[in-house]
């Protein structure tokens, strides 16, 4: 499983999703929880889905049909993705300790 670039925003999204890994959330909900604009969130979710850390699905038809609105897309961490994400997050330098120029960041590709 490849590791995506762990930008600060990506880390924030991951931490939020990992807060409640069983729960499915729609895109706007993630944006609100993380505190980032939707335009930042969707690319991150797309990348996470590409590497298999996150999965998405359409809303249950009975719910949105009853409410008379179009369906939403829900996102959720995958079990393997949760493990991989926790590992990767643990290896990220903690806030306040910015890596200096030349300091090797935790290796990305093939880390799994």
């Amino acid at each position: 499983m490849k590791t995506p670039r762990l930008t600060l925003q990506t880390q924030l999204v991951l931490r939020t999703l990992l807060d409640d890994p069983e729960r499915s959330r729609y895109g706007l909900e993630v944006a609100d929880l993380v505190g980032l604009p939707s335009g930042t969130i969707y690319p991150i979710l797309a990348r996470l889905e590409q590497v298999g850390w996150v999965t998405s699905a359409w809303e249950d038809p009975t719910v949105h049909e009853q409410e008379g609105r179009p369906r939403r897309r829900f996102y959720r961490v995958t079990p393997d993705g949760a493990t991989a994400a926790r590992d990767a997050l643990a290896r990220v330098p903690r806030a306040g300790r910015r890596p200096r120029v030349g300091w090797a960041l935790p290796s990305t590709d093939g880390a799994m």
Partner: protein
Amino acid sequence: MTPDGTSLGRLVGAVRLRHPDADVELLQRVHACAARWHEGQRRRSGEPFITHPVAVATIVAELGMRPPVVCAALLHDTVLDTPCTIDDLTADFGPEIASLVRRLEDPLPDAGEPRQVDEVLILKMADRLHNMRTLHCRSHSSRQRVSRETLAVHVPLARQIGVETVGRELEALASAVIFAAAAAARARSLSERLLAWTSAVLPPAVRTRWLEEWYGELATLPTRRARLRFAMEVARGMPRLAAALRGMRGVPAERRASAPFRTVLSGLVSVLVGGGVVALGPLAMDVLAVAVLGGVLVLAVVLLHRDDGPARRLVELIKAWRGTK
């Protein structure tokens, strides 16, 4: 053979099938008379008006109605739209047919045989059905109005008087118009238009999926302001999303922008140069664009992401051309 002739043949056949001893000669006389009254009149689609009564009469005949009703169908617009009067019809074709036509405009609740009332209603259904089948030439608002009326009035009525097939077709035709308008109306909101336009950079295969997701979110936002803000935020993130979906991680924004940059340059030059320079291909337009801006460096940035032969040869050509200046 005129179009009328062909459809008249079909009409006669339909009548004969269900009423073998029908007075075909009368039917033909009625058709000729209606054609004369409606001569010079045209439908919105440009066809001779007579095609409408013939179509309605055919629907009525195929429902198995009696020949007098079929004749009334052929004449149903004569009294309304032409100098023809009920008295004329009575004189030419007798009281029964004239009475049916009169009832179309003025369905008296009394004195009519119940059978006649039913038959007149079926005539109205058939009239509406043909109109629904030929809605295309009407204005958008007219189509909406007619469809809504059909769903509210004619569909339940058709069920009640027992012409199920007509009711079903009316419902299908009217619903299609209403739903199409609803979909188009939704797309007209500014937020949705913004999303639809900016999502053009996404890979076509997934574009609809993302648009549907965002339209779903839009539907949950309470105010227009919130919807616009959402649309603008998503629009701002569109290039990044496009990059993520194409799997190009970590590509600098300038390189990714170069393809649209070229297109914009070419577009700009074609506007500047004007319509005379029609024969130039896109690559030549790029050359021209760069020449106008006067920078080989710009050209190199623009073309560098392509490493194919033609691009390299062009760069050499430009360099050489600039060398002669």
